[in-house]
């Protein structure tokens, strides 16, 4: 391709925009290993801030809460999504458009409204202030993402494979575990990873629903940086970044990040 002036300008602009996107992430990582905290450039490398963050019982507790919450919400959402997608991709039935809309609704409704609605409703039915409310909120929040990814990977699935298994006498469950799941494995990995990372990093829903004593890490980090300004906050933020980066790599390898986030509406043949 001939590189002309216009392309050069476009390239320059894109690189500046990328720097803008990456700037806060790089700064956080830099501060977390800098012995002089916020005075840059760093004069050396220290693990002191990480050690402080990872030995504080408050943060370790929050990390455990986030981890447990992320795993439970991810597994429940994917189990639900897998069932729903098997019906959505393979069958046509009246009211399918409405079912699609309902399943996608948690990402169509602004997080503020979604969290407020759950908050007032769970308080009304007596589930407010319990860990259940967080699990429900996170499961519903990540469900649409799981449905989209799994729907996309099931659409490319050749159903004659399942028929063959059934013909030689495999049960429905056996077919699911021996044929269907292995075939959509990359989609499933992508879905599990995306759901976990979205739950792990969620702030809006957690801040509305977190009961006392069960504070997820992002909310704990927020309350910390509201009053404290030191590099321990940076180390904590960096820990979140590192975990997200691992997830980004897995997503990239499995289905590609764009595909994972974008997904496809279930039931829409492409």
């Amino acid at each position, binding site marked *: 391709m001939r590189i002309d002036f216009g392309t050069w300008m476009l390239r320059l602009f894109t690189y500046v925009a990328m720097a803008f996107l990456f700037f806060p992430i790089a700064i956080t990582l830099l501060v977390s290993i800098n012995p002089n905290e*916020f005075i840059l450039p760093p004069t050396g490398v220290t693990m002191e801030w990480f050690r402080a963050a990872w030995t504080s019982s408050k943060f370790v507790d929050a990390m455990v809460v986030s981890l447990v919450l992320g795993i439970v919400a991810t597994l429940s959402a994917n189990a639900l999504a897998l069932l729903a997608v098997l019906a959505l991709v393979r069958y046509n039935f009246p009211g399918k458009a409405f079912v699609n809309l309902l399943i996608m*609704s948690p990402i169509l409704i602004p997080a503020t409204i979604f969290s407020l609605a759950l*908050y007032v409703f769970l308080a009304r039915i007596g589930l407010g202030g319990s860990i259940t409310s967080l699990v429900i909120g996170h499961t519903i929040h990540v469900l649409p993402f799981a449905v989209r990814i799994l729907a996309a990977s099931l659409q490319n699935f050749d159903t004659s494979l399942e028929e063959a298994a059934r013909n030689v006498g495999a049960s429905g469950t056996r077919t699911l575990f021996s044929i269907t799941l292995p075939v959509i494995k990359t989609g499933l990995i992508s879905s599990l990873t995306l759901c976990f990372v979205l739950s792990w990093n969620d702030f809006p829903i957690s801040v509305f629903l977190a009961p006392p004593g069960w504070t997820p890490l992002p909310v704990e980090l927020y309350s910390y940086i509201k009053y404290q300004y030191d590099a321990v906050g940076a180390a904590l933020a960096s820990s979140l970044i590192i975990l997200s980066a691992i997830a980004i790599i897995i997503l990239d390898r499995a289905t590609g*990040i764009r595909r994972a986030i974008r997904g496809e509406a279930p039931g829409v043949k492409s």
Partner: protein
Amino acid sequence: MRAGVVAFLAPSLVLLTIFVLIPLGWVIRISFNENVGGAYMRSAWVLDNYIQFLGSTWYLVNTLWYTVYIAFFATVLSALLAYPVALYIARSTGFQKSILMTLVLSPLLIGLVTLVYGWIVIFRGGGILNSLLIGLGVYDEPAQYMWNIKGVVILLVYIGMPYMTMSLLDSIERINPFLAEAARNVGANRWTTFWKITFPLTMPGLYAGLVIVFTLNFAAFAVPLMVGPDETRMIGLLIYKEALINNNLPFASSISVIMIAASSVTIIGLGYLFNKMILNKLEAKK
């Protein structure tokens, strides 16, 4: 087969009905309740909460209109920033494309609080941005970005970027490359080709991006909460404060209903604007 469909869908649908549809209905219901102080409300059918908001110039002008203004401003900025980026990514291939895609989308996967932390380090009075700008001679003394509406706008633009880029990229990649080639073959230069071919064809993507990002910005509460000044008058933050700090659930609920209505009106207005002004103009030019 029919029974199978029902059994497969039932768990999700039951969960979503109980924990999405009914709660939304409940929000609408309690928006008509009476607030009796403290955390208590009385079941009623009154319009007090709506009147409290809609009858007050302070709320209407300084909160609702102000939020529309800030959200729209940030949305337009992120479109201006995302458009060239999307064009460049669409043209790039292979490894470069995948790296650029990853960078653009990573803010979606890295938590909001984490990103905000990075910006706090940059924005603070004695922070990195100010040292840089003073060093470059842009300012003589530190400018205030943190706990300031400028910080809120920068962060909203930042968070809107991935959505906007993705939406634009979808429509750019859908354009038939032969169209641009054909235009060039009949003697159009790159600039004309862009304005006559590419730009009009990306209108649907631009519109979709504007709608998504505006909706997010309009309802945002976490960004103004974390980087805005204490008295930030954004509607999402007002809902958060009324619900969690003042415990006035009926008022918080009625503001939510108003917010959804205002957001829908703005989006419909935007759609009208796009249809009438831009698409018709393009039509006329042909």
